[in-house]
């Protein structure tokens, strides 16, 4: 789950996870300094970033982990790790602050990681049509856009299902 601060990442994780969302932190290590824009935050030798996560046991052998972490530029180092072996990402969109979703969309697009954009209705009825939001986000037509309420389990589950379907649609056709 990516998206700016306060877009509902933790809420979404919590609504579908079988365990209460856990929070841990990642310390900004030296390795990430090179890719981190320190402008304005120079005083942060020991910056940490919160990482929320939950789990869904699919079968005794398969566990799906849900990770939510801020989609700000300076936190991409954690996404570089999360993106490995990930099915994909849900980018949560708050229509009042579309700009906070751009970095995440850009990140996943550039790396070819499957993602869906999910407009969180938590903030009230959405005033825009799907077309308007797509065009404002400059979403590739192939990228699904879903409307969800991150507080609602069925709705969050549907967003996850869309993501898995989308990831499957991008697999090479079995010969």
């Amino acid at each position, binding site marked *: 789950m990516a998206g700016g601060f306060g877009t509902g990442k933790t809420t979404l994780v919590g609504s*579908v996870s079988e365990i209460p969302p*856990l*929070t*841990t*932190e*990642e*310390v900004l*290590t*030296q*390795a990430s300094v090179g890719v981190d824009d320190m402008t304005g935050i120079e005083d942060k030798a020991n910056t*940490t970033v919160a*990482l929320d*996560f939950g*789990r*869904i046991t*699919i*079968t005794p052998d*398969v*566990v*799906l*982990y849900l*990770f939510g972490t801020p989609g700000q530029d300076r936190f991409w180092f954690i996404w570089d*790790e*999360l993106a*490995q*072996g*990930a*099915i994909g990402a849900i980018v949560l969109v708050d229509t009042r602050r579309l700009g906070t979703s751009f970095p995440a969309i850009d990140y996943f697009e550039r790396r070819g990681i499957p993602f869906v954009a999910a407009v969180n209705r938590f903030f009230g009825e959405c005033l825009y049509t799907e077309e308007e939001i797509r065009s404002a986000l400059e979403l590739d037509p192939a990228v699904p856009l879903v409307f969800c309420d991150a507080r609602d*389990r069925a709705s969050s*589950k549907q967003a*996850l*299902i869309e993501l*898995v*379907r989308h*990831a*499957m649609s991008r*697999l*090479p056709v*079995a010969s």
Partner: protein
Amino acid sequence: MSYDTWEGDDESEAGRLVPLYILVNGRTSPRNTNLDLATQVIARPADTSRLEPEYREIVNRCRNWISIAEIGAYLHRPLTITKVMVDVLLDQGYLGIGSPAQQKIADRRLLETVLAGLERL
């Protein structure tokens, strides 16, 4: 003569006398670079009495398969430290590791399993 008193917060994790970086000899990354947040580990039968308490705590958490991220969350340790400590324990045979995380999921059957599982929720 007065004693200096230190009321600072260098033991924010209650009772911590040793900084975390000492526990990992100042290492900042695991030797096994395949370890990631979702890597699953499990305790192997071993006598843990000679381990430092912080390491023993990890082994005790690993009675069942558990991810590195979960260990960090339950024990309130930063992930970087958790990863290095798990690496040490793997190296010394206290923990076993599950199948390594895939770089990319391109397994249709696995995705179908996940999809079916989500639909059952």
